């Protein structure tokens, strides 16, 4: 694996009123890896995603994507550059079909806008067809192509979570940020999801993964970064992080030797 950074957070601080949700966080995600971001509730994990995707403007620090600063970039431009995400609480377009959900995302790279669509230019027709093929292919890849024509709100919960991933992939990202994709899954669903995430990585995407399930994390991550109260307290191979006393303390709330 190369050590070429796709995403770099430099001294990132995010303050909400009196709360420092992120405090001087440094993080590097390398191309082609599955990097896990863990930490207790309220540690600031989702906030990392929000800051990276432009939902919040960081109080301090910098985010580099492929070496370029994301400062001042619009949310939709950040997505277009190659960063896609899912949401901790499923936020699909419920009244669109699964396919349309993904299509909305594949549209990012489409060149024809309203005028082209209005006059059905050959390019718009071509792009529309290509978009549909691609969206359908992604649904197949994720394994929910049989749901293509169902409204997202009518999908079973697990498929909604998978559709979120499919929609994120629709934007053809370089890095994909998954926010607790296995939340509410049973063990066998979790196992299938872990395999899917590896498959996604093998397809060439870089993955930054927030997850609470340790066994899932340990099984598939190349690297694990740990946040606690907005600060990064560890960043290493899964096996090393697992035995880091600070991490154990953060999770158990007591010093490691005391337990």
């Amino acid at each position, binding site marked *: 694996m190369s050590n070429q950074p796709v995403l770099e957070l430099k001294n990132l601080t995010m303050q909400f009123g009196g709360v420092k949700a992120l405090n001087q966080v440094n993080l590097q995600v390398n191309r082609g890896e599955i990097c896990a971001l863990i930490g207790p509730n309220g540690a600031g994990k989702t906030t990392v995603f929000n800051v990276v995707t432009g939902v919040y403007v960081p109080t301090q620090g910098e985010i580099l994507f492929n070496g370029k600063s994301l400062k001042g970039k619009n949310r939709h431009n950040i997505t277009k550059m190659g960063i896609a995400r899912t949401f901790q609480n499923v*936020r699909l377009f419920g009244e669109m079909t699964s396919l349309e959900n993904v299509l909305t995302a594949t*549209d990012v790279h489409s060149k024809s*806008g309203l005028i082209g669509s209005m006059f059905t230019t050959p390019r718009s027709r071509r792009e529309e067809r290509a978009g549909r093929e691609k969206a359908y292919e992604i649904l197949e890849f994720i394994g929910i192509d049989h749901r293509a024509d169902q409204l997202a709100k009518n999908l079973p919960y697990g498929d909604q979570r998978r559709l979120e991933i499919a929609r994120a992939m629709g934007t053809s990202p370089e890095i994909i940020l998954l926010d607790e994709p296995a939340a509410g899954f049973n063990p066998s669903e979790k196992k299938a999801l872990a395999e899917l995430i590896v498959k996604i990585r093998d397809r060439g995407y870089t993955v930054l993964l927030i997850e609470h399930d340790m066994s899932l994390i340990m099984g598939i991550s190349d690297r694990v970064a740990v946040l606690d109260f907005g600060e990064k307290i560890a960043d290493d191979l899964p096996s090393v992080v697992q035995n880091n006393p600070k991490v154990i303390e953060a999770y158990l709330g007591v010093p490691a030797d005391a337990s």
Partner: protein
Amino acid sequence: MSINLRDSGATLWANANKWQRYLIAGAVILAVFALPLLEGTFLNTPSTPFEMVLFYPIGVYVLMALGLNVVVGKSGLLDLGYVAFYAVGAYTAGILSMHTKLNTWEILPIGIALAMLSGLVLGAAVLRLRGDYLAIVTLGFGEIIRITALNTSAVGGANGITNIPNPPTTFGLKFDLDHPRSFYWIVLILIILTILVIRGLSVRRPGRAWESIRQDEDVAELMGVNTYKYKLWAFIFGASVGGAAGVLFASKAMFIAPNIFSYNVSILILAFVVFGGMGNIWGVVVGAVLLSYIPEKIRFISDARMLIFGLVLIIMMNLRPDGLLPRKKREKIGVAGEKSK
């Protein structure tokens, strides 16, 4: 009942092949074009000849409802100043006919362009606001346009503009008081064009962008939709339709004045959209036809028209927020075949 009607229509359409579809569409269009022939039947309206009612209010309002539907129904942007674009179209016709020799057909594109321009200006200014603020600001904009017209003597002030010429005779069709059906046919052509364009846009990128904005604007933006741009397009598109309606109206009525373009018109059109079914083209058409025809048919309603429309808004929102013919409530039929090939 209405849902079933809608669904059986949709099923019929979905199961038809290409030629059958042309046949159905052709027959329906022909029937609608032939409506003026029903003058003198049970459809007759007591105070205004049926043929005239077909053009105004029905035709003009259906057209405007279609335009507003893109803004409110498809994109979820509550525009309470839609009348402003109608006014811009009508006043363009009025002013240009005062100062130039241009005929209606030459004025039409100018009116549309100016309406689009005002849509662009208004949209660029206010579309960063959300929901309710947008509603109030657009309402304010509509009033600004009206009051400005009221206080500008160059456009006749409160007296408005009179003697706006009818369109010239075209393809043997005469356009004047004795030939109201010509106006109806013209507005019908515009309605059909608008429906075709909206249908086309709906299944392509702009339609998805609008839909995603309506459902969850934040997420849409994060999925790469340039929400500002597409909201602006929705506004501009709606404005162009409103502008066209305004030019046609002026050329038929031959007279315009600021009080024609009051806030009530915006509410009227909103009621059509809401009654028929926000976001659904056919719902909106049915809503606009019914709600603009009934007050003409039943005289005593016409003074209480706005009152009834207010009630329509309350009742629909509380009991049937998706309108008479809701947008697709179920899975689309027949699309799977197209892309799984």
